């Protein structure tokens, strides 16, 4: 870190304090003092946030506020970007995920991800769901694998729609089905946390409703972090909401409170439509 960045970070540390309740007791993931840089440009400033167990936390904020960048730090997807650098402490169950000893393959099996655009592999529906189990060696034989695929698809409400065409290419499914398939693919390896980066922004309202319902059901067993542009969606699916603004975590509170009685002025301006 050069001196310019250092002083910048200092200023930010001095001048801003996240409103609301960013910290929890016994969280699933704990983020302390996270700073993210793209080359010289800082994208995330000193974020402190806890992500609660088996809860849905949504991250909202105007475009370019760093919410996706922050999300991608949580399973180190930012590693694939050469110029990206992450600082601070990010813990999964008290284990530093940026520790040198942590294998990123293992981490991503524990922290799964669903992307903005449905991105099934150009393989069969079955192969898509079975892929994670195959690479992580989760099943011993074909019977177990079949069972896992079926269970995952049932879980995502896709089984009845695809059970007769498991060998057909996944790319032939509709957008909403593809996204649910991607979720099925993610939960097939039974991760502890699922990160969702605007999972419904490429879907029509009906498909969106189905996926939201699915997220709601999954939150019983999974910790879910969802980035969304839709405040209604955040209000519908999440228990907690984090508002990001220009790389800073402005406010974290219970979703109901954020949307009815925001503490910070910027949050209020955003949810009432004055920024965005």
């Amino acid at each position, binding site marked *: 870190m050069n001196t310019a960045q250092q002083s910048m970070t200092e200023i930010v540390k001095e001048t801003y304090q996240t409103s609301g309740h960013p910290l929890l007791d016994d969280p699933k993931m704990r983020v302390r003092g996270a700073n993210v840089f793209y080359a010289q440009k800082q994208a995330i400033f000193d974020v402190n946030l806890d992500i609660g167990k088996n809860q849905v936390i949504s991250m909202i904020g105007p475009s370019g506020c760093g919410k996706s960048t922050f999300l991608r730090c949580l399973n180190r*997807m930012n590693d694939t970007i050469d110029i990206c650098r992450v600082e601070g402490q990010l813990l999964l169950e008290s284990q530093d995920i940026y520790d040198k000893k942590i294998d990123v*393959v293992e981490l*991503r*099996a524990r922290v799964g991800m669903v992307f903005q655009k449905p*991105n099934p592999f150009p393989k069969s529906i079955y192969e898509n769901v079975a892929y994670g189990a195959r690479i*992580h060696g989760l099943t011993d034989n074909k019977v177990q694998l079949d069972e896992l695929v079926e269970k995952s698809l049932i879980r995502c409400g896709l089984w009845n729609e695809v059970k007769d065409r498991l060998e057909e290419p996944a790319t032939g499914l509709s957008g909403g089905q593809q996204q649910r398939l*991607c979720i099925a693919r993610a939960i097939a390896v039974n991760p502890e946390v699922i990160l969702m980066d605007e999972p419904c922004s490429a879907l029509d309202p009906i498909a969106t409703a189905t996926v939201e319902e699915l997220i709601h059901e999954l939150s019983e067993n999974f910790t879910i972090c969802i980035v969304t542009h839709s405040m209604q969606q955040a209000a519908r699916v999440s228990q907690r909401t984090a508002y990001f603004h220009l790389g800073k975590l402005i406010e974290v509170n219970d979703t109901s409170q954020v949307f009815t009685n925001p503490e910070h002025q910027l949050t209020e301006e955003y949810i009432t439509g004055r920024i965005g």
Partner: protein
Amino acid sequence: MTDSSNTASNDSMPTPVEVDQARAELAKRRAASLKKRNAAEKRFQWAGRLSIAFGIACVLFLFTDIFSKGISAFTQTYIDVEITFDAEQLGLTPQSTEKEIKAASFGSFFKKSLRAQYPEITERKAKRQLYALFTSDMPLILRNMVVADPSLIGTTQTISMIADDDFDTYYKHSYGKNLGPDEKISRLNEMQENLVHQLVRSGAVKKKFNSILFTNSDSREPELAGIKGAIMGSILTLFVTLILSFPIAVATAIYLEEFAPTNKITDFIEVNINNLAAVPSVIFGLLGLAVFINFFGMPRSVPLIGGFVLTLMTLPTIIISSRAAIKAVPPSIREAALGMGASKVQTVVHHVLPLAMPGMLTGTIIGMAQALGETAPLLMIGMVAFIVDAPSGITDPATVLPVQIFLWSDSPERAFVEKTSAAIMVLLTFLICMNSLAVWLRKRLERRW
């Protein structure tokens, strides 16, 4: 207030009449510009059509020229001659061993048999001219027939004998045509021509499909020269090239695209790969000569070294097209795989490679087609030698199709002109097949995502 009615600097709002006037003015301008635009578009389309027409005309001209010259090489003139395998004359019996047959003098036997057919030819020179109507290998061919089937001894057979190239050329191009002395393509003298006429009238002369072209290798006698050796040489050379260049190029492309960091070194490598693609092929030949033959002391004229040199030449082509194919794989697929916890190698092997494979194969086939037609570097490493036997392995001396074309085009005999064109036709057939295969593979393997 005329032209300024549509500028923002206007103080007062224009009246409706003024707005209409201004719009009418603009409509006029639009109409004028539209005419110009349409004309420009038409001109552009016609320029495109003309260039395509020019290209097609060139290709058609080339093909017709080669075809019209080469088509006659696919037939060969044969002369039916009745031969009695006289046991006494040959000094053989049907029970003779192979060794005895091989030792027998078929040369004088052949000449005697011919003289028996034409008792009126007595002069020595005339006799020689009679023999010259047949290919000089005829005694050898007869001997091989007897070796294969000793029971022929003592029987009389009608043998289809291969005509000499002078006979063949005369019969194909000048016989029966009313040509002036300058137009006539013939190296036969009057006596020989009369003999030909006599033979044709007796029905002994036949044109058959020229299988010799495909079953023989190079020869000094045009009627016995074939391209089998050159085709074998080309296949072996391409085999070596493919085995080496495909894995090396794909590994390079994958490493550069998927694993290598972007820094000065990789930039430097990229620039150099692109430069290599533009290096004249003869330079690769010189490199092969200097490194493989002079420095490492490997044998010259062999497909192995030809393959090495052509590998160096095709590598940039395949690397560049493979990288393009890998780049074309959508990043979302990589993200999906990485997000599932696949390692970098698993992501590449499971997802990127299958999607990039059609493009890689297309590039490889195009590179191979380029290698198939390459001549200059092979001249440098001595694959230009006159080689009579077809190579049976990658370390046997060999030549390749384009070099064979080069050699034949340089030969003085008239008959090699049509052989050259025929060899070009075969080469073009191979090239067209390979390029069609590339198109078919791409269509076949291409997947939507």
